[in-house]
């Protein structure tokens, strides 16, 4: 990847932007950080450092790592931001949402709020596995955490998610 040209990189942007946008939107839901700003910075940073991309990992997981680090930096800058748990569910609506009905809307917004309330490490794994559809080896590339620990954290994440939803009054039966 050391001699990736401008045209090749334009293609990388076109191919990866929509998927990355969805994943980072999920990661940032409930915060005031704009996923588009993060992605813009992600691709510029990736372009500057493309020479350092070894090609051993997938380009998507490499881009995701950059984006996630930028999000964490942004969270650190805004550490006094309002707690997610105190935000109304309406704030978890996305600009491109198309709900099929009011029940469907409420359940989806509550699920988003519950995911947002998970600790960062657990939230990342849930998003990458259950929303982005990555495999555990791919998640290991991004997080640097071994697969057994990832599965253990996935269990904790799902357990916490079930508890959060129960506390929000969502009927899981």
């Amino acid at each position: 990847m050391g001699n990736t040209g401008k045209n090749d990189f334009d293609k990388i942007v076109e191919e990866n932007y929509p998927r990355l946008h969805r994943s980072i939107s999920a990661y940032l839901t409930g915060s005031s950080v704009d996923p588009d700003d993060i992605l813009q910075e992600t691709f510029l940073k990736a372009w500057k450092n493309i020479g350092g991309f070894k090609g051993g990992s997938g380009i998507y997981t490499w881009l995701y790592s950059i984006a996630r680090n930028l999000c964490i930096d942004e969270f650190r800058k805004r550490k006094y931001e309002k707690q997610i748990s105190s935000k109304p569910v309406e704030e978890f609506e996305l600009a491109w949402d198309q709900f099929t009905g009011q029940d469907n809307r409420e359940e989806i917004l509550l699920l988003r709020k519950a995911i947002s309330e998970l600790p960062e490490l657990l939230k990342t794994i849930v998003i990458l596995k259950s929303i982005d559809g990555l495999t555990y080896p791919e998640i290991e590339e991004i997080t640097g955490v071994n697969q057994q620990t990832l599965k253990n954290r996935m269990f904790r994440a799902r357990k916490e998610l079930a508890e959060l939803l129960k506390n929000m009054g969502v009927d899981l039966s």
Partner: protein
Amino acid sequence: MNRTELIIRITDASDGILTPDELRQLETDLQQYPDLMSDYKAIMKLPELDPVYPQAGQAHFTGRIAAIQNQIAAANRAPQGEPPVFYELSLLWFKKYALAASLLIVALTSVSTWLQSGEEYVDSAVMMDEFFYLADENEADAYVMYLDEFYF
């Protein structure tokens, strides 16, 4: 199976990769751990999370992608900064090469001394003594005379 192994199996079950037989075996094993059984039941009731975040339409990204591509093109066209002024260059070179230059000087001096000393045997202590305390012919005579007078 111990607790850790069961937790991994519960994750596999919720990921949907266990066969019906494996699921039945897991549920049997969980009988010994009521707390894990309760977690397992709650986890298996969780809804699919994939539809929670729909994929935005391609039109939503066209402008953003073009903006990023333009920014990269602009960054490529931009001059790579002003050339460094003399003092910046000197400092840079000094930092970069000062150690190497010092080592080179020490090495050259050592080699040249070694080559010179190789020609004939030189007592360096005597050589340094002669260098600092130049021999005075008159004083040497007086000294010899004095000794002569004293002993003989």
